[in-house]
């Protein structure tokens, strides 16, 4: 029905421009759209990227490759520490780091996709991570106001996708992918297996197809 969504990884990453904010799925490398990242590293020249991802890959793997190319200007993440090279890059001042508690990070991306202007969470209130943010007591508990996160492009990975763009994630490879698929102007889904339309049980679609703009099949 919508054959226009299916493209090559190389073609897909041409849609990422200089200065873009990209949301990248995965918890560590599990559920990360590795073919898309590799093509971004190898065939795109987009620079000054803001990367929103729970981790910045590992040395030489995933987003760690992009980091080595000095193409990341800013990272928004809950755990830079899993890639020592990301920590070094931040400490050298090569990339700007915004750290969020992992649940706030997830919720802020969900809010970005859901048209929520901001939300109050008790997590992080009264700590270093609330500095510069509005805080208020709600029912006697200190909360911090967090803002939604959106991207220009989201790169997500799903084990299964159908031709319409419905997605189904396998085991813990789901993680941030469904949230990120809602929160970017252009959503590129890398799928392990491409099914005909309707190949995912309608109740068990994790990401409905309206969120997905382009589909790339993993090599």
């Amino acid at each position, binding site marked *: 029905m919508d054959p226009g969504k299916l493209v090559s990884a190389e073609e897909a990453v041409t849609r990422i421009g200089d200065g873009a904010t990209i949301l990248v799925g995965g918890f560590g490398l599990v559920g990360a759209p590795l073919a898309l990242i590799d093509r971004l590293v190898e065939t795109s020249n987009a620079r000054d990227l803001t990367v929103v991802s729970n981790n910045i890959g590992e040395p030489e793997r995933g987003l760690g490759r992009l980091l080595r190319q000095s193409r990341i200007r800013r990272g928004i993440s809950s755990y830079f520490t899993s890639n020592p090279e990301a920590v070094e890059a931040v400490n050298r001042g090569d990339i700007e780091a915004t750290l969020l508690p992992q649940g706030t990070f997830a919720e802020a991306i969900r809010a970005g996709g*859901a*048209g929520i202007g901001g939300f109050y969470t008790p997590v992080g209130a009264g700590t270093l991570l609330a500095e510069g943010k509005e805080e208020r007591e709600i029912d006697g508990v200190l909360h911090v106001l967090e803002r939604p996160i959106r991207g220009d492009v989201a790169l997500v990975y799903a084990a299964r996708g*159908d031709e319409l763009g*419905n997605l189904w994630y396998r085991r813990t490879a789901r993680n941030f992918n469904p949230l990120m698929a*809602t929160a970017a102007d252009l959503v590129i889904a890398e799928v392990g297996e491409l099914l005909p339309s309707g190949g995912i049980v*309608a*109740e068990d679609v994790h990401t409905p197809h*309206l969120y997905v703009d382009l589909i790339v099949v993993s090599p």
Partner: protein
Amino acid sequence: MTGDVKALIAERAARELRPGEVVNLGIGIPNLIPGFLGPASGVVIQTENGLLGVGPRPQPGEEDPDDIDAAKLPVTALPGAAYFDSASSFAMIRGGHVDVAVLGALQVSATGDIANWAVPGKSVLGVGGAMDLVVGARRVIVTMTATSSAGEPKIVPRCTYPLTARGAVDTFVTELAVFRVQESGLVLTEFLGGANLEDVAAATAAPYEVALTN
């Protein structure tokens, strides 16, 4: 309002929808639109009670009690449909992922304000998804008769009924004409059902320009 008038409005509104667009249809005239969309229209229908990919009404006797639309009428689901909960559905709507909302109105203004959920002086006890839809959908089309059953124009300089949202509507389709809300003001772009300038003038209380596009 006769069935002919409703059909006229629904048919014209259907032509506003483009292939691939995700559309939410309100109760009443908008619910007639699927009858005017060809099978190859490529329009995808979302219903806010939790289904993307609404298909035709089921044959009598083939209704599934768990498959309804927001009007609580039986529906079918097309291949590739997806079901989801209400928070996810309204995240979709509020987050701007539904391309078009088509819904009725009691009043609309020349700047796209819409009042469609409450009548002054009566208790206001039902809003449903109307506010979410007019705020969240990327394009909002109002389908309605030009005047109320009391003969009052519904296109007014300023809504006197409680607002659903301000500046939210893009297009009005009545049995007389199509109007576009533009930066410069309201523009009549098309006559319908053989109406002329005089008919529209008599049924419209807001100022508008005329710039026919066909």
